[in-house]
């Protein structure tokens, strides 16, 4: 089968693990060489749970690498993912130049990320930040540096990064408008050539551009179809049961979108109402970016796809969910009923013949993904 043609602008986040002794820098450099482009280092933010009482999360900055092609266009970023843990030697010493910066205040960390030089060593990155507060860096054991304010209250802490944290490599592609197959395939071929493997906790997330979804009736249809068949579709594409940041929507969402009042709302009002339903990004189908009107990530995110080192399975799953979105924008918006069975849904999405046959074959052979 040729690569399925995707007719929707979409970006991909593919979680991989570099082999021992290599880092995500190596993959970024390989991609840059292929594209005739450049690699630049930047600070990548993540949240992690905190054991400090009264402080549920710490915000992290770790080294990420951005590849632009010869014309300066973004190709992809290569970043850490804290959920990828299995297979790493937690006792491994830090590699030179690899560090992380932690703070309990995400606002300060985002300010630091904007203004600190990520190409610098730790001291060079933090020193200007300390000077903003009129203080000097405090040095502690193990290479740890602390930024404090004038009352010696911690603002941010930087430390070398042990435990092979340079090996997790999430490929974050630029939004792709066409030739999704060729672009993904080239990136995954580079990853395979570097010896990347799919880690235990891996997932692939697809961000569908949300411009066409900014309509209360479209969102209502999308919530309806995924409330009925989202679990089946998740099993159909073979989600990774080790992925922990998945789950269903809050009950308030469907209660809102089923209401007659929601269907009559203009988009700004509908979006505000969606934000009151308790949406989070840690679910199977992320509506938060759409509802929050994120400037940099205005997307509907499907988070249930497993990772593959070849593009075909990812594209087949993307084509399936593209079909669901097209249904929501078209027949669903006009009030078409949702098929009671997932095979009926698939058959009614207007998918390309090969794609439809692939998913119907799978629906009929996976007993728990079949009709309810």
């Amino acid at each position, binding site marked *: 089968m040729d690569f399925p043609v995707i007719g929707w602008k979409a970006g991909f986040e593919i979680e991989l693990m570099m082999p021992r002794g290599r880092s995500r820098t190596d993959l970024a450099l390989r991609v840059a060489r292929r594209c005739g482009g450049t690699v630049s280092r930047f600070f990548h933010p993540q949240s992690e749970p905190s054991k400090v009482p009264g402080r549920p999360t710490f915000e992290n900055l770790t080294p990420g690498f951005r590849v632009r092609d010869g014309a300066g266009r973004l190709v992809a970023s290569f970043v850490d993912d804290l959920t990828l843990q299995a*297979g790493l030697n937690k006792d491994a010493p830090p590699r030179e130049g690899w560090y992380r910066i932690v703070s309990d205040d995400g606002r300060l960390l985002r300010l630091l990320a904007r203004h600190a030089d990520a190409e610098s060593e730790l001291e060079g990155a933090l020193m200007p930040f300390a000077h903003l507060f009129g203080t000097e860096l405090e040095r502690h054991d193990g290479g740890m540096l602390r930024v404090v304010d004038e009352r010696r209250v911690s603002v941010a802490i930087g430390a070398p990064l042990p435990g092979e944290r340079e090996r997790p490599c999430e490929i974050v592609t630029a939004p792709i408008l066409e030739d999704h197959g060729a672009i993904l395939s080239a990136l995954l071929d580079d990853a395979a050539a570097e010896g990347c493997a*799919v880690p235990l906790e891996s997932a692939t997330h697809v961000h569908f551009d949300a411009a066409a979804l900014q309509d209360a009736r479209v969102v209502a249809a999308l919530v309806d179809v995924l409330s009925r068949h989202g679990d089946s579709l998740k099993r159909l594409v073979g989600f990774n049961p080790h992925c922990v940041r998945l789950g269903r929507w809050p009950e308030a969402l469907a209660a809102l979108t089923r209401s007659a009042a929601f269907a009559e709302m203009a988009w700004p009002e509908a979006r505000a109402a969606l934000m009151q339903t308790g949406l989070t990004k840690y679910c199977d189908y992320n509506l938060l970016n759409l509802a929050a009107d994120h400037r940099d990530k205005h997307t509907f995110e499907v988070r249930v796809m497993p990772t*593959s080192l070849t593009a075909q399975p990812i594209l087949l799953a993307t084509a399936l969910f593209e079909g669901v979105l097209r249904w929501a924008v078209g027949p669903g918006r006009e009030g078409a009923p949702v098929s009671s069975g997932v095979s009926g849904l698939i058959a009614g999405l207007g998918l390309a013949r090969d794609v439809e046959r692939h998913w119907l074959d799978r629906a009929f052979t996976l007993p728990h993904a079949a009709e309810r």
Partner: protein
Amino acid sequence: MRLSPRLLRRLTAALMLSSALTLATASAEAANDPVGAFLSSQYTYCDAKLVAGLWKISIDDAKAEIGRKIEGGYAGNIAPILQQARDASLTCEWADVPHGYDDAERLARVWNMDSVEDAKAKIAWLYTQGDSASVLNALADNPAAVAPQVDDAALDAFYASAYTYCDAKLIGALWHIDMTQAKAEIGQKILNGYGDNLPQILSAARLEAQCDFSDTGLSYSDAEKLASVWGVPVVQAKDKAAHHYTQGNSAAVQAALAGPATPRPTPIVNTPGNQPPANGGK
């Protein structure tokens, strides 16, 4: 795992011979059974052990992880994971491979090694590298010169197990040994605690041979009942039963035989009480 040209040709032929019914049956049976998918695959206990060591999960969970990737169409993910396990210095030992002392002794001679212990170490190393085919090919190309004494206890263990005449036939074809020796090999592995390795050996054996209806131990009347239960002609029922036995799924056949047959329509017999009226009933 590398396959010899001979094994590759057999695999290709086996795939081409599969009927639509067989494919549908096999895929339906394999779907959503990740451990079953692992056991039917080319991957070994050693491979599962490596994945378990890399991800710090149980070997049974590792089997399911491998099987899940196969079922989901992501089998291409497995080789790099195994390589990362090897890079982390994870290895398999002699106890992790599906071979006995006789195999090691034979390969020590084939490989011109000074000791059987050296051969055991090389076998374990080959399995660690994913190259069990080299071991199996070397054994197949160098069958035992003299039939070893058959152990009665091993035969008893075979007969007490769930393994069938068909399973023994498959192993006999793989290792070029007679039926009695094949039964004893199965029994010996069970007695020595290596019973978990038998499914992988049988997976390799299925690339070389298959069972006929005559190897199942079923009778013609069994075939008739299976035809009734499965709703197919008797000839097809025989083929289907043989296929199930070849795939190690004799339990499905036994379950079909244990259930009720589809009742045949009761023939209408004209008796004085129910003869039709002479005028056609109008």
